[in-house]
């Protein structure tokens, strides 16, 4: 399903991005001293991007027509892909949580939590050994924290432990 409309979707997203860049460019201040304002390149880039986007959308529609005439079924493929996508989405959700709580909870706690759940997401069912995951998560987080602190003079956020 998605594959079929991929180019039309990507072209539309690019077109949207181009319009945002173009509209926003008018809020950039202009100075009289510069012969070419700070708006020039953003506007040029957005126009270029819009043209390319239209071209991609056009190509997408042409492709769609062609596919209809040949009629290839790819439902099986997309179904399989769908179940795999969950891992990607779960990973992004976990990383978002990681970034938003890194400062508050500190590197050691947050990284341990992150690693533990990421191990679970990535491991196949038969490989999910939770006690080992927990130990590895904590050991790795603590080691990274102290290795960087002691050997590379980099102090990571200490958070509530600090």
């Amino acid at each position, binding site marked *: 399903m998605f594959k079929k409309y991929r180019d039309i979707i990507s072209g539309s997203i690019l077109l949207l991005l181009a319009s945002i860049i173009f509209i926003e460019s008018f809020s950039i201040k202009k100075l009289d001293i510069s012969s*070419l304002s700070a708006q020039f390149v953003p506007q040029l880039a957005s126009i270029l*991007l819009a043209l390319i986007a239209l071209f991609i959308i056009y*190509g997408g529609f042409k492709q769609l027509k062609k596919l209809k005439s040949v009629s290839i079924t790819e439902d099986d493929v997309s179904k399989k892909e769908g179940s795999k996508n969950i891992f990607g989405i779960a*990973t992004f959700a976990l990383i978002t949580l990681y970034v938003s709580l890194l400062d508050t909870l500190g*590197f050691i706690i947050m990284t341990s939590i992150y690693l533990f759940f990421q191990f679970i997401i990535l491991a196949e069912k038969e490989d999910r050994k939770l006690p080992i995951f927990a130990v590895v998560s904590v050991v790795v987080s603590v080691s990274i924290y102290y290795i960087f602190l002691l050997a590379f003079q980099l102090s990571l956020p200490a958070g509530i432990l600090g």
Partner: protein
Amino acid sequence: MLSGFILGFTSILTIKIFLLILLGVVVGIIFGAIPGLSAAMAVVLFLPMTFGMDPIAGMALICGLYIGGISGGLITAILLKIPGTPSSIATCFDGSPMAARGEAGKALGIGIVFSFLGGLFSFLVLFFIAPPLADVAIQFGAFEYFALAIFSLTMIASMSGGSLAKGLASGVIGIVFALAGLAPVDALPRYTFGIHALDAGFDLLPVLIGLFAITEIVKTAEADASMKKAVIQDFKIKGFGFSMKEFMSQKVNFVRSSLIGTGIGILPGIGGGTSNLLAYMAAKDSDKNPERFGTGVIDGIVASETANNASVGGALVPLLTLGIPGDAVTAMVLGAFMVHGISPGPLLFINNKDLVYSIFASLLVANVMMLIVEFYGLRIFVKMLKIPKHYLLPIIFALCAVGAYGLNNRVFDVATILIFGFIGYSMEKLGLPLTPVILGFILGPIAELNLRRGLQHTNGDFIPFLTSPIAAFFLLIALYVSISTVRKNMKRSKEEKERLASAISG
């Protein structure tokens, strides 16, 4: 030149630096060998460790990672039939049939030795052309840099193998992301959306980590665990694994592949991932019986492995002399320079001559170490392939986060890798290539800065951009490249149409 080398070697002749290079080579080979991990990722992960080192030590480590990372892919390509990195795709073609016949040892020996020789060839080219090129580049002003940036940007078009439009779109996306922050020349804020952390724009490194490392991790999370089912071929090596006669039969192939590899490396935007395939095709096309390629002949391995390592020296030429990276790894290296407050370019050869020659020396040392370590450590590297991915990838992410955080000691940069990871992932899903983004991101600001700076000099007159001979030269090639790419693309789509038409009717 010779004095430079003496200077370079004396500055790295310490146990600490040798150990760093060794560490780099070993880790690089491991990253190269494990599918899904690459030389670029190895460099990213080790960057934070170089923050506290002096630049010479830091760059020595990175040289080791780079060389090991490009070479390591051959182990998997031959023993597992999966290229460890895109640089070793063509190594699979003849490497895996050889392994299947029980000649894995010979294939590995050939691959390792020619990786070494290809690297060596390109380093000699680098040593001889970089300093004179820097002498020329030192005279470059705003006009020339603008033209050079435009020329490099047009290379995006020609290198985006698949769709021209998508490659261009990715390039422009890169330019757009680089807009955030203060505009060049007049320092007016734009596209910061009121976020103060964005005032200085996005840092190159978090963008790179996000686009390449995070995207790769998530992609691997989604991919099948094909490594599990893969059978690792057994192997035996005596000596180098091949005879002197076999070695001598590859002379022409070696020179041709080295030239292709180095040349591709020098061109902005394309590196080992392209050169190994091109060299393989060139070797096949010029052979008397091309059919034997793919059945397990050493020629194929020689072409691929010579070319990918030869790209390393090539890619460093534009980076060191002009500050323009040749591929994704050199973009990371550019980031590493910036961390140390050094901007690569012609001035580097005057102000930091010791650093330049220490890099040259480190490359030579790393290349020799790669040869030795890969030979004697083969069995250990093969064992490393069995580390479960579900442990490896999350730990790599944690190290990426450390790297991003360590840049400015702020969580904002960790958030940046998340944002760009998501962007990279979405782009992959939408079929948009990632390398052009980096080129646009780096070259866009160079082009704009020098355009506006030049116009300020000339009071808004564009003619001087065309009358400077060097600038005119680059702009002309840029024009030629653009036109020929569009024509080639039109021809290809026409051919495809005809093929499809005949396929339907036939």
